[in-house]
């Protein structure tokens, strides 16, 4: 079964490029360039995933409008924002609306396809059985394992890589896909740590700087701390990267 992707982008050239690339990867695509058409298209034929540009024509927040209306209707559709608006406030706003990911332009089509696949897999897994018990494994012992559920019992952290799910002391951590990947990578690296270049690769984004990684780590820490006890397991190795320390 081919997954159906709706692309909402007001720039027709970019729209065409996304569609061509995704079609070559085996996805079905449908393109819209404004809010109303997009909402009608989504309602008429529910897609598996939606790629949304934030700025649609003169509507500066068109992408956000579509996202909010879909989630208001209870639609459980993974949404990825693709935008040139890179301000942190825009990213936070988009993710809080319920988007699964927020990618800033320019993007790599290959990596975009991989992210879409990953999101669809996660979505599928979550939809299949969200009540499964997660198998507890020690992060250090399974550092070479790429997939499968893992749990750092001692720190109170629960991770399911397959579903990109993380919980802190039993409470779900609302991490983005990029943040989840970074958390997983650091946790797997253990006390030895992981350098910035490896962390950049784990984000599956084309242009990532140390500053970008640091911003993500700050967001991760913030989300941990919002849920409860002080989280101090992710430690900075100045000039190198980050390490995982069991507290």
């Amino acid at each position, binding site marked *: 079964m081919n997954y159906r992707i709706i692309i909402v982008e007001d720039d027709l*050239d970019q729209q065409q*490029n996304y569609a061509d690339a995704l079609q070559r990867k085996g996805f079905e695509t449908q393109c819209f360039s404004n809010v109303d058409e997009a909402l009608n298209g989504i309602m008429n034929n529910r897609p598996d995933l939606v790629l949304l540009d934030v700025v649609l024509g003169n509507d500066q927040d068109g992408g956000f409008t579509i996202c909010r209306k879909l989630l208001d209707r209870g639609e459980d559709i993974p949404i990825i924002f693709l935008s040139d*608006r*890179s301000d942190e*406030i825009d990213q936070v706003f988009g993710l809080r609306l319920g988007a699964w990911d927020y990618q800033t332009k*320019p993007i790599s089509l290959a990596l975009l396809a991989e992210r879409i696949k990953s999101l669809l897999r996660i979505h599928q897994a979550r939809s299949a059985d969200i009540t499964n018990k997660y198998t507890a494994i020690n992060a250090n012992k399974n550092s070479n394992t790429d997939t499968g559920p893992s749990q750092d019992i001692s720190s109170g952290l629960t991770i399911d890589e397959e579903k990109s799910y993380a919980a802190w002391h039993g409470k779900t951590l609302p991490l983005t896909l990029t943040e989840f990947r970074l958390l997983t990578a650091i946790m797997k690296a253990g006390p030895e740590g992981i350098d910035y270049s490896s962390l950049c690769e784990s984000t599956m984004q084309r242009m990532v700087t140390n500053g*970008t990684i*640091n911003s993500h780590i700050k967001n991760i820490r913030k989300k941990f701390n919002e849920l409860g006890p002080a989280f101090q397991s992710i430690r*900075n190795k100045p000039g190198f990267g980050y390490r995982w320390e069991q507290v």
Partner: protein
Amino acid sequence: MPRFGIKFQITLLSLGLLSIPLVSLSYWDDIQKTALTAQTRIQEIEAKAIATSLLATQQNIRELLAGNEDSELQKHALSAPSIKHPIRMDGLFGDWPKRNNPPPRFNLDHPVWLALPGTPNETAFSLRLAQSSQHLYVAIDVRDNKIVFRKDSHLRLDYNDHIQLTYNDQSGVLRRVILPAENEGSLASYYTDSYWQYGQDIEVVALGSGKNNNIINTISSHKTGIQGYWHKTPEGYAVEFRIPTTQLDTVQPQIHFSIVDIDDNPAYGPQAIVASLPKNLEDKLNPVALHARELQRVIDQLKNTYARLWIYDSRGREWAFAERHSEKQTVLQTEYGLQEESPSTAFDSQCVRDALLGRIEPLQHIDGSDGKLKRLLVCYPIMEAGETLGVVVIDESADHVLALEEARVSVIAKKVGGAIILLLVVLFTYAFTLVRRISRLSQEAQMSIDTHGRIERTTINASRNFPDEIGDLSRNISTLLEKQHSYMSFLERIPQTLRHEISNPLNKLRTSLENLLDQKPDLAKDQYIRKLDAGIDQISNITLQLTEAASLESAIQEEQLAKLDLIEFLHDYLSAWNGQIECTQLSNSSLINTSQSNTPLTGAPAFILGDSSRLEQLFDKLLDNALGFCPESGKVEVHIERLANRMKVIIENDGPLLPTRPTSEHASQNTTELFSPMVSTRSSGSSIHLGLGLHIAKLISDQHHAILIGKNRTDGSGVIFSIEFELI
């Protein structure tokens, strides 16, 4: 340049106002001279007016002043100058007014009678007269080597030393009074008859209510109205007494004194009699100049205008006298410390003598002992038909004139002084208000821009609503700040704007290229496609930097700083950098040396409030910058300096210098420009420098309350960036 503030300037200028009273003071001497000259002139006019008025209004002026006495009698006229204060009747003459000439002395040069003619006799007396408005005062100093007092058993009054007084009463009737030497104390006096032996009652005619209804009153002999004192002196005795002027004839006043010396045997009669007239005039009385009521009325009208006024006849007899009211004097004395001279008479002065000689408009300024002008004496002759009948004398105290002038000038000076003080206060208040307004404006203008030259607020409230030049300046500064703020906002938005504008076409390029390569994989080896790919990556990198810079400022505002060991951080950080350089060969010839010349990087902990990832970003930018500008043969050094409660991290690199303004005294003065976004001050060949690295470094250093300074080495071999943290 020394500070020369507005307050100081206005203070200096205000002091110039003080020159006004100083200059005025220098004119005081001129004012005094002018006042005295004017006063003299006024007195002269007044005296002339009085003289003219007397001649015009007093029909009997000639009779009054010239008199009809024969010239021989007039030689013996007695003078009775006016006195200001009553004289105490105590037989002592110390309270009598002083005179320039000694009092007339009468002795045996013209004795009336001697018991033993041809034998020497010492009897003599001196006589003084004075008058007030109510009394004629008499002082007689008698020389008598043997005083015979009246005995209680004697009824007769002439068996003892005594004085015979004769005068015309107000009705022109001759009255005789005998003043016997009874004892020390109150003077006894009795009316008597021409025998001078016993007391004799007198009859006085009083005017009745109707025609021919005059009443005759009898007055006892001892009720003479004379009050006095008898006092024994070493040479004889002194008698001091006063007679009411109402008992005297003031038109043709005449009086006569005879001293009767009684020695060993009173029954034999007097030893000698000395009179105030010589023997050939024994049937006459001495003329005495009592104030004439008609003339007195004329000058009384001016008595409050001048210190003293006199009218003398040509023989020096005083016919009228007036002086300023004593109460007024007291006020002057109290206010100005004025002590007026009280000359008993002006007749002795040269001024009067000149006037009597007919010299018109004479005047004389009398200098006191201290050389200062004390009195203004103006004398004007009363002349009729070429004959000088008398003289009008007006005397005024120079001190009084000056005191009045001074009082007037003082009032003016007080008003001028008050006005100057008021003006000074107003000037100072105005100056302080101006200075305060300018200071506030300056303060607000300074506070509107932070230490890095960023505009914090665009509205200046100081003097904003004032409709003057400072108000204009305030509003202009606000307008300038608004314009500058708009421009700065535009500059600050450039990275974000550029990023927004570039990202879409860049994304279009990137995705198009990817699709192209996906469709035609063999193109991947084409050099132009590779260059295109590299170019897109380069532009992507630029947009990434722009994004980082644009988002940093808002991001760091929400970040919390935590306690952090700067030494440990730097140790870990620089270890990672050294490893990275060796592994990745970022710069073949550039080396990072962690110099330990000042403080080992592995020293005692140095805690600061910080964020390790932001510090990492900060040092990344500084080291990127240092390595980027370091030549192949150059060197980058990092070392630290521990200060008292601060720690300085210094990053030095060889290479091109930071540009310095020709006028800059310190290279660090261009820090603001150096750390501004989109400003690259150095050329480094092919590398792209948006000038965002140092801007980001500056933002992070500010977040850490650290001081970031960039400057050139003193030897010109490279650049030094230092960041100074505050330890906790």
